[in-house]
Structure formats: structure tokens, C-alpha cells
């Protein structure tokens, strides 16, 4: 979780951001100055104890903000074992059907993926997959656990997994949300033409699942094509003579 947080950006709260849900200008100002789009804001007061606001920006304006309360917290230091190196790309697992039912939960899932997924890579070292973040939605609470991966030998190529609890674990309760309006969300999802997946030309699919391809050929002289030699169909000398005689007789008849 430490990977992308720029060290200089732990701002002094007392002087600057007080209430993200009421006034977002200071948040936007900081995001513009530091060129960051993801933020997390923690606070504690009597009305909202152990409050955490996770949010993201689009074009330096607040897109989504979700406030969660932390009920149980176990820090990295409390669990005494070896940790994985900083900056590892974690594996994310979301369990529970709640994550697809409500719009709030869906956005929260999207936000958490955006927050925790790390840099996009095209290759990953299989032995370097060490970190798993597991989110379970149950009974209105979200259980967040982080585990370290141990690869054990199984008989075949794919290893057997054993997990060891490593990192911070939290029980979160959803409080307030400030989700972007539909059109702003659509605007932020817009992809430029260059990034859209390219259609493959000359390939078409049947309703039955057959794939058809199209090959473009230049004009061929069919008389000069080299085909397989069917020795059995070759004319034998006797037959050829007979044919020649037939042709001659036909020609005489025509003339």
C-alpha cells in the first residue's frame, strides 16, 4: 500500500483540508499542485470516529469520494513476520455478491481496484507474486485482509497456495458517498480512438462459432499451376494413340 504515495504529500490537516465532503476546493487545489488524482483522507471526531475518505479525481475535480469507518484495525507492526518488498503489484480478490448489487458497492469496488492495482504491466514474474489483498463484503461490512503468498509444491506445475496473514487488516463500514453524476462518469470513461481495441480485418464469425478468414490472392494462371501428380490417372501410350486417332477423324469430318 505504500507504493505510490509520494512522501511529500502527507499534508498537515489542521492547516489545510478540514472536511472533504463539505468543501472540496482545498482537495482540488492540492491535487492540482501535486498532480495526483487518488487521495485518502483520515480523520477522527466524536460524530465520525475512525473515519477514512477514499477518493479519486478527474481533471483535478473530485470524481468519486467514499467515506468508510474503520471498526477493527490491525497494523503491519502488530503482525510480526516478514513482509513482502515495497512496490510489489498485489493481487486483488473481491468476494461476496454485495459488490454487484448496489451502485455504491460497485463504485467502491471500482475505486478500490483503481487505488490498489498499481502500475499496469505487461509481464509478471510468476515467482514474484507475493501479495494478495482480499475484500469480503458481508453483513454490510467489508473485511479487508492482506496476505502473503507461499507457493507449495503440488504434484503438477501449478503450485498449491498457502496464505499467511501479513499486512494491515481492517473491517470497514460504508458511511457517506459522493459519487459522480452519470454524465461526468461517462466523460471520464471516454477512451481516445487510439486506445480502443482494433478490429481484426478479414476475419468473421459464424453464429455457430466457426471463424472465417479471407485471403486475397493475385490472379493465377491456372494452366501453369503445379498440382499433385496423380500417376494413376496418367494416360498410357495406347490410350493416347487412340485419342489422337479420334481427334483426326473428327477433324476430317468437320473439314
Amino acid at each position: 500500500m505504500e507504493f505510490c504515495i509520494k512522501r511529500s504529500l502527507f499534508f498537515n490537516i489542521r492547516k489545510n483540508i478540514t472536511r472533504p465532503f463539505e468543501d472540496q476546493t482545498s482537495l482540488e487545489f492540492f491535487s492540482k499542485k501535486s498532480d495526483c488524482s487518488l487521495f485518502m483522507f483520515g480523520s477522527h471526531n466524536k460524530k465520525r470516529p475512525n473515519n477514512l475518505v477514499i477518493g479519486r479525481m478527474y481533471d483535478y475535480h473530485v470524481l468519486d469520494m467514499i467515506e468508510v469507518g474503520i471498526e477493527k484495525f490491525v497494523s503491519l507492526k502488530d503482525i510480526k513476520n516478514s513482509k513482502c518488498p515495497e512496490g510489489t503489484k498485489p493481487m486483488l480478490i473481491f468476494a461476496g455478491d454485495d459488490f454487484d448489487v448496489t451502485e455504491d458497492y460497485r463504485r467502491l469496488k471500482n475505486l478500490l481496484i483503481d487505488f490498489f492495482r498499481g502500475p499496469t504491466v505487461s509481464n509478471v514474474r510468476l515467482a514474484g507474486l507475493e501479495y494478495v489483498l482480499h475484500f469480503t463484503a458481508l453483513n454490510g461490512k467489508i473485511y479487508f485482509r492482506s496476505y502473503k503468498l507461499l507457493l507449495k509444491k503440488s504434484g503438477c506445475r501449478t503450485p498449491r497456495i498457502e496464505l499467511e496473514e501479513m499486512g494491515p487488516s481492517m473491517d470497514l463500514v460504508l458511511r457517506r458517498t459522493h459519487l459522480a453524476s452519470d454524465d461526468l462518469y461517462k466523460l471520464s470513461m471516454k477512451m481516445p480512438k487510439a486506445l480502443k481495441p482494433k478490429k481484426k480485418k478479414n476475419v468473421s464469425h459464424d453464429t455457430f462459432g466457426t471463424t472465417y478468414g479471407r485471403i486475397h490472392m493475385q490472379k493465377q494462371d491456372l494452366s501453369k499451376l503445379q498440382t499433385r501428380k496423380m500417376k494413376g490417372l496418367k494416360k498410357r501410350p495406347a490410350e493416347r494413340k487412340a485419342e489422337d486417332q479420334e481427334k483426326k477423324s473428327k477433324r476430317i469430318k468437320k473439314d
Partner: protein
Amino acid sequence: MEGQSVEELLAKAERDEAEKLQRITVHKELELEFDLGNLLASDRNPPTGLRHAGPTQEAELRALARDNTQLLINQLWQLPTDRVEEALVARLPEPTTRLPREKPVPRPRPLTRWQQFARLKGIRPKKKTNLVWDEGSGQWRRRWGYQRARDDTKEWLIEVPGNADPMEDQFAKRIQAKKERVAKNELNRLRNLARAHKRQLPSAAGLHPTGHQSKEELGRAVQVAKVSTASVGRFQERLPKEKAPRVSGKKRKFQPLFGDFAAEKKSQLEMLRIMNSKKPQLDVTRATNKQMREEDQEEAAKRRKMSQKGKRKGGRQGPGGKRKGGPPSQGGTRKGGPPSQGGTRKGGPPSQGGKRKGGLGGKMNSGRPGLSGKRKGGQHQGGKRRK
């Protein structure tokens, strides 16, 4: 007997395999959804085992996590792998989860001068072959670039033209000309770039109502909203005490109402003189050019629309290509000034081709009446426009 032991061995091998696979298989009611590009797995199964909170909850959570992770790892291990410096590396597919962007999509760059001109004239890029036959070297060479087919700086023999100074270095002259061309191209490129960066449209992201906007932001949003009507804000009512908005634009300067009497008299007399004179004060060249430009624009726009429609409906042949010639060379104005030949045409017979609007008083038909009026079918009349 041997057969039996072989069977036994096979059965045992099968059992072993199943056992091994058991160690990595996990049974789930609903299959998980994987997004391997993000190393993500979503489990839709309701976590029934954890309904009751209790001391065993941590262990149960961990078991659930272990199962899900096992499935994800199984998927990851099936990806194509490479060996990179003694490490086994899996090639991840593209991430499928759609996440919102951090910054807005970059705006399309303004057209360069050439692109604007080509658009106006309706010039479309001609498809050219990559290689050209070069007689001198007897091989196929690039059209442009390294070792191109016709490179005039690489000639080994240049004849001195009749009117040139015999002491002049023709080779150096060609190299110099090339350098100048390159420099001019670079200059134009930089100018296009500067033009692209100067114009930046304001984004609409800050104008969405959030409920938490400052006074300045709201003021700006109100201004933009006022001007976004069909009459560009001319008939928008203002609140009783609202101040008129500051007009930002070109400042017009007017002459004072009364001041310089001599200058005023002079300008008035000049105007009268112009009105009384018989000769037209019209610059025929400019007028014809303007007319031609307008027509070119219309034509090009129409052709573009046709080709877009054609592309959408699946590549029908558009109604003809370019027309040979263009509007007639008889004095450009519609008000019917004296028909003077010339204008911009350098030689060339007058009254070419058909003007769509029907021409000026029928004087056009001395040319080719067949081509006047509408274009006939999809005739592709290529060729350059004669100036």
C-alpha cells in the same frame, strides 16, 4: 497376470494424478470472474460460511481467501510464459476492467495550413506506391528517404545550363537549394505546432454543478451558460441589480463625433466622387477569386458528405470525382458587372464546364454544353484544375 498388474499400475497412476490435482482444485458454485491484466478475481458466491461472527471468523476468511487465490493462481499459471534472465515470466493480457481516466482525453489538434487548404479544395491524398523504378541504378528504390530513386543531389554529372556562370559550382548549388527547402519545411512545421498549442478550448469538467463551488467558479459557469444560447446571449435577461458583463473581445475604436472638419469633408467628397464615377470600383481579380473559393468550399463539403454517407452505407461510389475546369472566367460578380475575360485565368478557353447555379445570363453555353449542369453518373473526372 501381467495384464492385471499393468491395469493396477494404470489405476494407481490415475489415482495419484487425481490426488495431485486435488491439491490445487477448488470447488465453487459460481465460477469466478478474472481480469488477469489487473491480477483481479471477483467471487460472486455469497459467503455463507461466514454469516455468524465468532472466533473462527478469521480462519474462515483466510480459508475463503486461500481458495480464491488458488483459483487465481491456477489461471495465471496457464498464461503463456517466457524465460527472461533465468526467471519465468508470464505475459499478461490487457486489463478488461474499465476504469475512469485521470485526465481528459487530449483535444484534437487544429488542422495544419495544408490540411485546411486540402479540405477547402477537396484534395484527397493519392495512393502512391512505396517503390519506384530507378533507371540509373536499375533497381526498385524508395520514393523518398535514404537512397531514394531520384535524388538530384547525388548526380555525378550536371550540365551547366546555357545562361549560368561557367565558374559556378552546380553541385553546391543543388545542395544549397536542398538545405533551403529543408529549413523552410522545418519552419512551417514549427509554425503549425505553435498554432496547435496556442488554441486551447476550455474543458467542461469544471462546469458541472457539485454543490460545493466557489463564487468565482459559479460566476464563470453563469457566464458560459448565458452565452450558450442560439443568440449568443443577446436576449438573456439580467437580474435587477446584476451588472452588465464585461465584453471581452476586440476593442473597436470610433472616430470622435465632431473634431476634424477638414478630414470629414475630404472623406465625404471622396465618397461622392466614387459614387458618381462610371468605372466599377470592383477589383475583378479579387472578386473572382472569392467566388471560386466559395464554390470550391461548397463542392468539397458536399463531396465529403457524400463520401461519408457512402462509407456508412458500405462504399458506394460517390457521385463523380473532380470536375475539369470550374466556374467560368467571366467577371465574377453576381450583380452582373461587365463581362470581362481574364480575372484569374491564364489563357485557357473561357466558360469551362458547368456552374451549378446556371451561369450568368446564358453566355456560358458557348463552351461545352454537355458538361454543364449536373454531373452524369459516377464519372471519375480526374486531372488537375486548370488555373
